[in-house]
């Protein structure tokens, strides 16, 4: 027996040879997690099993440790204009404490990373992907003026509490200027959580209602234990995080997004804010604005498969005999009980309802283009 397509360890390409440990390492191991190297760290891939953890998150609440992600704080004179030069975001419409999705683009409009940007007092709080954070910091340092300071908040842990019971569980432990339930999707604030100062936003990567929680690393184990002390909450591994985000139609950097893909192809034009579409003036604008005007040659789509054999990343997508695309994420959907995939396909074959096939191990798996997400989002708007 041997893995044909091992889990997403290609993120390790630029990572140190020996994975580092994160603040909750002992905590995960004590709870029976299977730890694997991911993005340069030992991370919990599963506890009791991916399907059980996935379904628990959809029906109750799951606690995810995402402390491998990069938390940055950017400040300094002219920070607003400086950030707009590297991100296609309109900071003029960014209200305080309301995270917004954005993209780090290279000069050719390729995606270097996807990230969240929040206006805090005196600066901007960014959350970037773990595998790309060092490159992101280097890219930002290169493109931001010297008087702009980039603080890597390496002493902060990041948790995500996701699922329909997340709010009721969190409300018992959090105190703040407003009740936690008063936050709506993509709003945040400072709270005291189990006695610890925490930045909490109503956001996440599962398609469910939920929260992302930044806390000091030294308090992470106590906060995680307090949250998992609530009957609705169980710890959930990275395996279910991946299957949940796939069902939610959310792209995963390094798989569904890369420097070879521009935001228009990825269907992420909402991240190019309205004023920036009109004015440009951000890194990669030339390519992105041209792609917006002309329409993309290929598009990220959802594919629903018949049968039970999953399509995997790298599999060729066919229309008749012609190869018209490639799978970038694929797996079994625990909620839908059939395999699903995301792929980039030629624009002519991207309409929902288009019947295609996927080449897997010499077979042609029938697949139909379907709208994303595969499983409806249940955000608290």
């Amino acid at each position, binding site marked *: *027996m*041997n*893995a*044909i*397509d*091992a*889990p997403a360890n290609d993120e390790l390409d630029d990572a140190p040879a020996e994975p580092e440990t994160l603040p909750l390492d002992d905590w995960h191991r004590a709870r029976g997690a299977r730890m694997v190297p991911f993005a340069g760290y030992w991370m919990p*891939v*599963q506890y009791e*099993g*991916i*399907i*059980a953890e*996935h379904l628990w998150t959809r029906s109750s609440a799951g606690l995810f440790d995402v402390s491998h992600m990069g938390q940055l704080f950017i400040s300094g004179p002219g920070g607003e204009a400086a950030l707009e030069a590297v991100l296609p975001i309109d900071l003029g419409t960014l209200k305080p404490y309301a995270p917004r999705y954005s993209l780090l683009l290279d000069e050719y409009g390729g995606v270097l990373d996807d990230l969240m940007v929040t206006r805090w007092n005196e600066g901007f709080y960014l959350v970037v992907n773990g595998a790309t954070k060092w490159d992101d910091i280097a890219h930002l340092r290169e493109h931001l003026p010297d008087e702009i300071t980039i603080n890597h908040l390496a002493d902060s842990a990041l948790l995500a509490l996701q699922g329909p019971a997340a709010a009721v569980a969190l409300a018992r432990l959090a105190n703040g200027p407003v009740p936690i339930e008063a936050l709506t999707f993509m709003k945040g604030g400072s709270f005291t959580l189990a006695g610890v100062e925490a930045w909490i936003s109503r956001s996440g990567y599962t398609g469910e209602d939920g929260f992302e929680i930044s806390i000091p690393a030294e308090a992470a184990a106590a906060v995680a234990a307090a949250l998992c002390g609530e009957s609705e909450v169980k710890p959930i591994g990275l*395996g279910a995080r*991946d*299957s949940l985000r796939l069902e939610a139609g959310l792209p995963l950097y390094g798989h569904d997004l890369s420097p070879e893909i521009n935001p228009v192809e990825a269907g992420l034009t909402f991240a190019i804010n309205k004023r920036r579409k009109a004015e440009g003036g951000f890194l990669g604008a030339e390519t992105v604005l041209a792609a917006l005007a002309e329409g993309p040659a290929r598009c990220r789509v959802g594919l629903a498969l018949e*049968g*039970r*054999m*999953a399509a*995997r990343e790298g599999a060729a997508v066919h229309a008749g005999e012609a190869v018209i695309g490639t799978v970038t994420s694929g*797996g*079994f959907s*625990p909620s839908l009980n059939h*395999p699903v995939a995301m792929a980039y396909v030629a624009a002519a074959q991207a309409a929902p309802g288009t019947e295609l096939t996927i080449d897997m*191990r010499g077979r042609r798996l029938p697949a139909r283009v379907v709208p994303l997400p595969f499983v409806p989002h249940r955000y608290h708007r």
Partner: protein
Amino acid sequence: MTTYYTKDHEWIAVAGETGTVGITDYAQSQLGDITYVDLPAAGTTIGKGDAPCVVDSVKAASDVYAPVSGTVTESNAALADAPELVNSAPETDGWLFRLTLSDPAELAGLMDKAAYDAFVAGL
């Protein structure tokens, strides 16, 4: 009936010229939730070390190698609707396929249970 094991975590239970092949409990625990098993058709001729069978888990697909050479006589039809049997009963009801051995001498290169258990303990 004698059961032999491979370093790739397959088992083969042999009675006369017939062998039943599956993956070990260690293997299923490493794979996690199994969602689909791609089984060889009866009549398929396989050589030792070929990969006639693929086990899909939520995260990944894994080849199952033939411990010995032979001709497939039957695959486990129950796995079509219940692939999770490979998780819950990997060394009994979750068997994968049966074959007629073409060269029983190949069994000499495999491990017995004690040797396999020691091998896994050392991983």
